[in-house]
């Protein structure tokens, strides 16, 4: 129910700026920002025994689309990756903020920024934009992942309200509920990156809606022992193997559905 906009009798509107609470304690602008994320295609991140894997469903809107462009996964530092969903322009500007934070930390303290600290710093930045009427909140959520010799793999998610939480697996975007259900089925704590890459591809294929959204490109990246702590896009052969596994699994399910019928 859209309580923000009142009727013609001239009642007060609570949703016009982020600096206004509604009578039941909500900040509507932040909630609307989260809706913007839900309109975007899905991104997932999963942490396993020895690393973190990201998968993004990139919807292809045009036949003229160049493969591999319009990236939704960014490198924030050598050991940190960021997958985004929502308004992409907002996400790109936040990736620059994250890069500056990581770079300044290294400059001041001489070592890699711990992911918890980075996600708290960027979350604090996002939160600042939910306090004033002069600006609008960021319309994007993002998942940060890193791998470090001492702290191991780490995964954090930040949403437009400026909250950051650590996760073993999380999903953002239009199919996040369906993706979360699939992620919960996995025993990620016992898996390696190589095994997980295939499962991530499969989940994206599962949650992709063939009817509403036609073609999509799968963007996969990882960071972990397998990459020596460097965040990078998954190599072509691994990606092809993962996509093949995903497509085959879907066909099997289709076949078994038909058999059941």
């Amino acid at each position, binding site marked *: 129910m859209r309580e923000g906009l009142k009727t013609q009798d001239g009642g007060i509107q609570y949703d016009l700026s982020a600096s206004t609470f509604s009578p039941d304690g909500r900040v509507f602008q932040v909630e609307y920002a989260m809706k913007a994320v839900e309109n975007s295609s899905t991104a997932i991140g999963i942490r396993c025994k020895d690393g973190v894997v990201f998968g993004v469903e990139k919807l292809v809107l045009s036949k003229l689309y160049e493969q591999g462009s319009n990236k939704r996964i960014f490198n924030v530092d050598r050991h940190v990756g960021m997958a985004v969903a929502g308004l992409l322009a907002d996400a790109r500007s936040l990736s620059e903020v994250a890069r500056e934070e990581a770079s300044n930390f290294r*400059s001041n*303290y*001489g070592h890699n920024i711990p992911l918890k600290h980075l996600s708290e710093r960027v979350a604090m930045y996002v939160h600042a934009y939910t306090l004033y009427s002069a600006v609008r909140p960021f319309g994007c959520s993002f998942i940060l992942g890193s791998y470090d010799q001492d702290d191991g793999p780490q995964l954090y998610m930040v949403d437009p309200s400026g909250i950051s939480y650590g996760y073993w697996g999380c999903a953002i975007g239009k199919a996040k509920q369906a993706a979360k259900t699939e992620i919960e089925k996995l025993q990620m704590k016992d898996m390696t990156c190589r095994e997980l890459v295939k499962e991530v591809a499969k989940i994206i294929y599962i949650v992709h809606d063939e009817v509403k959204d036609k073609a999509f490109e799968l963007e996969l990246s990882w960071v972990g022992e397998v990459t020596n702590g460097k965040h990078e896009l998954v190599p072509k052969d691994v990606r092809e193997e993962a996509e093949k596994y995903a497509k085959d699994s879907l066909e099997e399910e289709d076949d078994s559905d038909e058999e059941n019928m």
Partner: protein
Amino acid sequence: MERHYMDSKIKGVSTGVSNVNYVCSKTINKLIQVHDRIFCCIAGSLADAQAVTKTAKFQISLHSIQMESPPLVKAAASVMKELCYNNKEELQAGFITAGWDKKKGPQVYTVALGGMLLSLPFTIGGSGSTYIYGYTDAKYKPDMSREECLQFATNALALAMGRDNVSGGVAHLVVITEGGVEHVVIPGDKLPKFHDE
């Protein structure tokens, strides 16, 4: 000076401070604690050194609270280095930062005048250090025990204080381990004597 032996660090300094024409104090403590397990030896202009270490101590303390864990020795040394490098026109102070942290154990870093940061197994500094480069290079060996290390540091300090006219007074040593910090103070007359005295 600093050394590190297997699981802890020993830092030692002498206590002389001079103005242009006279030694204004023979009893200054030049070992500043910047965090629970991290100390800095200061050399050069003591006013500059004190200003830098006070600022660094604040920054390191804030950093440690934000990180929710004790700071890395490397992080503390980097903070000192940033201060020295960014203010190199105005400052004339060098530091030896050493301590213990969970990630890499005992470590020694030196931050030189212009802001160069180096990690070393042992290092010496200050006006008296010029007289003991030969001694320390010859006598240092890795993986010394705590007693050997203390003896090495004490001897080196005694030799430097003996030869340098603006060094002297009292020798302060600090032993830093995972378990804690121990101060050892040796007055000038109790230092080991070498053949020239």
